[in-house]
């Protein structure tokens, strides 16, 4: 929960008094669908109605920037996104806009085609804004003030996000090559006009964009159904691996964390998914220092600001479990391969393993077409051409027609000529 600086000393009291739960963690099993786990988390938080009032405009920001298939923990799972969209619509939202700045190669079209989100928004008929390098006119963005920003005082963001009443941040828990791990805080960069520019002062920048402003998200949801965990030489933000093909890279955790405090969500994720202390992540520390939220997971668990829920279990888990969770974090939980539960149809589109350097496991669609789709349009000029040729031929024929009955070709000429001369005379 974001707190105004002068309220900072009292923040815990306010949090406890105003909202009993600021973060709800829902854990399921491999049998539970993403939608079920999501609903459990939202119910634990007090329902989506707490955030979305009827008629409001809701901006949902999934991770749509990576061109890797679903279930690789690279981008948001389309099923998961569909679940949140339908939930928000059921709560009576006036407009739902899905948006993400696709700043990573190969750009929005290709990324959306491969990660399945493009098809999803098309199927659901949802408004969407997916700017990338080319498809975004300047009017896509607007500049907002960050009154509490310490490194940045203003920021260009997607206009639809700044104008929305409610912003829902739909992050994926995974490793990152610059900030080590990326969860809710880092994911907010997808609202920005130029995410690359934030890199000049990345940690403070990430903290700044989560301070209270026109782009602050009201609800953060961390998707940890599949988590990309550190493996190999250096961490990757995305890749073709799945929890089936490379369980040492992608771990199946079946967890969804929803909440209003991104720092607390990220801190919980650090401990439980990646086995590090939240203070080790500089951007988390900076965000905490900027007053974006609380880092102390243990205290939050103690006073029920973080509550754990099991999918299917009606009652919340008692805080007594907390200690065990924290102790277990020193050794990361073993990944849970789920070969049994995933139907083969879901695997068909996935690559067998990580491929050569460059790692493209899909066929580029961006090809010079064989002009086939232009041929229909080409019929119009072709018809004009044929019409012109026909007109020329018809003109010739009409000029010859009077000649035929006379038999001799010179007669009509002479007649015409005499008329012509008469006209001149």
């Amino acid at each position, binding site marked *: 929960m974001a707190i105004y600086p002068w309220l900072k000393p009292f923040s815990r009291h306010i949090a406890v008094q105003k909202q009993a739960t600021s973060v709800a963690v829902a854990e399921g099993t491999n049998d539970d669908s993403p939608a079920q786990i999501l609903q459990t988390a939202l119910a634990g938080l007090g329902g989506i109605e707490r955030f979305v009032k009827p008629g409001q405009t809701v901006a949902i920001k999934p991770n749509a920037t990576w*061109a890797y298939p679903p279930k690789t923990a690279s981008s948001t799972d389309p099923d998961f996104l569909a679940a949140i969209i339908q939930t928000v619509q059921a709560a009576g939202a006036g407009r739902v806009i899905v948006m993400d700045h696709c700043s*990573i*190669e*190969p*750009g*929005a*079209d*290709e990324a959306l085609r491969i990660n399945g989100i493009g098809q999803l928004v098309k199927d659901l008929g949802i408004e969407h804004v997916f700017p*990338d*390098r080319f*498809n975004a*006119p300047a009017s896509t963005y607007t500049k907002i003030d960050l009154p509490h920003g310490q490194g940045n005082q203003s920021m260009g963001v997607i206009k639809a996000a700044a104008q929305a009443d409610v912003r829902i941040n739909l992050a994926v828990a995974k490793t990152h*090559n*610059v*900030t080590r791990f990326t969860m809710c805080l880092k994911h907010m960069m997808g609202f920005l006009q130029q995410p690359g*520019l934030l*890199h*000049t002062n*990345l*940690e403070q920048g990430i903290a700044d964009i989560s301070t209270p402003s026109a782009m602050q998200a009201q609800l953060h949801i961390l998707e940890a159904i599949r988590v990309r965990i550190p493996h190999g*030489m*250096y961490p990757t*933000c995305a890749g073709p691996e799945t929890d089936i093909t490379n369980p040492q890279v992608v771990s199946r955790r079946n967890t969804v964390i929803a909440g209003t405090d991104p720092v607390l969500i990220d801190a919980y994720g650090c401990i439980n998914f990646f086995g590090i202390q939240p203070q080790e992540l*500089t951007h988390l520390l900076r965000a905490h220092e900027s007053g974006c939220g609380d880092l102390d997971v243990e205290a939050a668990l103690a006073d029920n600001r973080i509550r754990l829920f099991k999918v299917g279990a009606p009652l919340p888990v008692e805080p007594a479990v907390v200690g065990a969770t924290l102790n277990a974090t020193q050794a990361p939980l073993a990944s849970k391969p789920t070969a049994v539960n995933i139907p083969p149809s879901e695997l068909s589109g996935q690559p067998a393993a990580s491929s*050569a*350097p*460059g*790692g*493209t496991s899909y*066929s*580029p*669609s*961006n*090809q*010079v*077409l064989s*002009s086939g789709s*232009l041929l229909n349009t*080409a019929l119009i*000029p*072709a018809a*004009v*051409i044929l*019409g*012109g040729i026909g007109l*020329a031929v018809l*003109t*010739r024929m009409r*000029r010859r027609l009077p000649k035929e009955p006379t038999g001799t*070709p*010179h007669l*009509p*000429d*002479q007649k*015409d*000529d005499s*008329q*012509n*001369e008469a*006209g001149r005379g």
Partner: protein
Amino acid sequence: MARTRRISTGRSDRLARRMVQWGFLCLFILPLLPMIYKRLAFQTGSDYASWLLPWDPLLALGNLLNRNISALIIGAPLLLLAISLVLGRSFCGWICPLGTVMDLVQPLAFWHKQRVARPNHVNGRRNSRLRYLILVAALGGALLSIKLLGLVDPLVIFTRAATAGIANLLGSRQAFERGGLTYFSMLFIAILVLEFWQPRFWCRHLCPQGALLSLVSRFSLLNRRVSAACSNCSLCRQACPMDAILQDEHDTDYSDCTLCLECESACPVRGTSFGFGGLALAVWKPSGQPAPSGKTNRRQGEYIASASILPGQGLSRRQFLQGLGALAAGLAIMPITHLEKRPSPLRPPGALPETDFLNVCITCQECIRVCPTRGLQAAFLQTGLSGIGMPVLVPRLGGCSLGVSCSQLCEQVCPVNAIQPVSQQQLKIGTAHVDQSTCLAWDQGVKCLVCVEACQYHAAIPYQGRVTIDVNKCVGCGFCESGCPVPGSAIHVFPPDKLTI
């Protein structure tokens, strides 16, 4: 009454020709439209190869002479030559998009009526033979390099100008994008300016494509026939935009006639008609006596087959030497090009070795049009005089996404195969190099590493907060350079032979 009928016939003729010309113009511009759409609507999407260049007989001949067999397209150019054999240079009058644009510009030259009234033949001059010399130079030069051919081929000029016009009109982001493109659209504009000097000036005097077609079209099967009703009023000669009507109004130079039908509608006695007949090798032989029909000066006569206008027979010693000179000039283009010391640029993926690329690229700039990241740009003077207009990769504007999101569009559209198909594994455009004095990570210890995130090849490696480049993995795609937050970029891609660390 006769007068009104004559005018109406002329109108329908002209309308027919305009319809065909507009139709073909739209047809040839159609594959370029996605570029307009993408720039106006800020969209990405498919591109199409040109529909014009595959029909180019001059280019096909150039590819043949340059032993560029893999790029050789035979069918369509042969079909065009066959059409020229049957229908004369109707390509120039009815199809050629450059000619269409000239005809569109022509009415603006309102003072031309007086100028046309004194055609060249009256002064005893003929259309310039310069276009044949240009043809010889272009085709002779093609033995070594088809650079000159690409410069003077009207279809390439039109393709280039259309791309340049689109790119310049629809807001290019960087001045770089305008340089080479604008330079080449100058040639197009010059042709249009010459149109104000004389109708179809380019076609009459300079066009090598027309010269090539007229080698065939002088045997044209579709002929202009003037009946004995001709009164020698020379109105047809004044109407002819190509100055193709010879001293005697009955005779036509089929190497010039574009079958525009202007003479037919201009004829006051309706004595001119077009039809199939072996008149291409015939001349009008007057029988001597004027016809006994009043005031008009009519002459009886007939067309008689003649061998005197067969090609080659009229070739004088002087013309032969001129041809040899043109051949030598064409052949000299390549050695002169290589005298120049040029900085080595980043070429498109799979481009031929630099010396070959300079000889083969005809600067049609199709690759620049279709590049999905707009990283390919037309060089202006950055790569020297001989590299003007040729594609260079400017990583700051956009990297090469071959294999990532692009299936090498530049190779697919290249009409001369100056860009060879290359797989992602074989790709090597250059090598990135980090400028440690400006890099945020090296210079200021900032954890930036945008280049690491952008790298598709895992060649930018973060080590203790700094970034280093694995030279073996780096292919020089340039995404690191396009993403770098430092003004002017702190990471640069250098050509393979230029990298010195």
